[in-house]
């Protein structure tokens, strides 16, 4: 009896270990693109960051995103200043993150273009909200490219827009993102 348990434990731990180190592959992207767009009759505002970070575990379908708020670049420096200082408070809340899972079963070894959905929590301005969003996955030569767009309501994340500029900033901001993931090699 004890023997059986012992063997079982070892076996499961081994499988687990094996699963994580061999089969489970981690893929990473550190230079993805993320941009957002706010459209109002008064003015259009857009900003882009070229340092969107993404990590994926193909064995669990888990996908995480991370971007530094201060890395968003605007056409007008004054807007960038207001964005960081007044609306996003990037000194207090320096990052936006998404922790989620891809809902579809995917054969990661097969090249192709797949429509996918991901569900998880998006954290902006230190306020976490559940999101389920559509996207596209392109598998080619062992690299995975995720692409998509979704809408964020500023009010959902307690981003206060002063009444004086309320006509200049849209209530719903469209976010576009794209990143290409490559196998992750841990730093020794």
């Amino acid at each position: 009896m004890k023997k059986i348990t012992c063997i079982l434990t070892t076996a499961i731990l081994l499988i687990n270990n094996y699963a994580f180190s061999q089969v489970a592959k981690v893929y990473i992207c550190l230079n993805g693109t993320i941009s957002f767009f706010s459209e109002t009759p008064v003015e259009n505002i857009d900003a882009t960051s070229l340092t969107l970070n993404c990590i994926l575990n193909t064995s669990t379908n888990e996908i995480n995103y991370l971007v530094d708020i201060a890395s968003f670049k605007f056409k007008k420096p004054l807007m960038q200043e207001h964005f960081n200082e007044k609306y996003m408070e990037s000194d207090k809340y320096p990052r936006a993150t998404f922790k989620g899972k891809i809902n579809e079963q995917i054969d990661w070894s097969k090249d192709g273009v797949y429509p996918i959905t991901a569900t998880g929590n998006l954290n902006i301005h230190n306020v976490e909200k559940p999101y389920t969003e559509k996207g596209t996955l392109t598998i080619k030569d062992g690299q995975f490219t995720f692409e998509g767009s979704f809408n964020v309501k500023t009010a959902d994340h307690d981003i206060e827009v002063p009444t004086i500029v309320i006509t200049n900033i849209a209530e719903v901001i469209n976010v576009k993102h794209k990143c290409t993931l490559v196998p992750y090699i841990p730093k020794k």
Partner: protein
Amino acid sequence: MKKLLLTSVIVFAAIINSSAQDDLMKVLKENQTVKPEKVIATFKTTKLINIQTNETVHKRVLDFRIAHRFGSVGSQYNGGFHNFYGLYSINDVRFAFEYGITDKLAIGVSRSKVNENFEGLIKYRIMQQTSDNKIPVSLTVFGNTAVSAVKDISESKVYDVFARRIAYSTQLSIAHKFTSSFSLTLNPMYVHRNYVSNPEDFNDGFALGAGFRFKFTRSMSIVGDYIYNFNSFTRKQTSTLTNGNAESYWDPIGLGIEIETGGHVFTIMFSNTTYLLESEMLSHASENPAKGGIKFSFNISRNFSM
């Protein structure tokens, strides 16, 4: 028993597995490329109260500035109830346009009331503090030339020589943003006046200014600055009280509140100096604040994107 053990082992294994997956974000954070960003908004506008900040007008932006300095608050300095605490007299008014040629270089023109000074100014960012503090300070140089357009009423007609109407000033802002709400600047200043009426006076004067900004809400800050004047002749200057007595020299000091709305910066402040232009301010004594020699003052800065 067997089942229980088996279950516990599986649960145990699952826990190990799931904790490993929670580390995904950790792995991402560890690998993330953190690009040092330029520190922005050390100050909100190009001028604090009496000294320049490290900020310049952004590229293709026109900053229209209106500054007003009223009379002294206290009755010992002609203020008090009958002069509505200085608001009925205007000491100095300055209208200025500053334009950003690039994000580093700005030029401007102004006209101010005292001595009818026309001013041409230039401001250049030499370097900008970075978020990783590899560049620990922001450095900006400011220079202006002031030409006085006053009517020459002197008998000796000193202003017949045009060059005598001209004064120059230079200032370096060495600024550091400590936290998102606290910034300091240290400003070595230099003034050159082509003409000084008193032969004992100096054409060249040096001063050292220091200023701070403390942001206490998302759009409001307390600002303040002080200038120590090294010019020994200027330090012997006095200000005149209502009763005609001379009050000994004071350095310029100022304290105010800065309110920022999108595109506008309003500064409401008190200062003991009468003058808005550097070359005037640094060649006259400021008034004694303890005797009511402080003046209400405001500045409106409006940014237009061109």
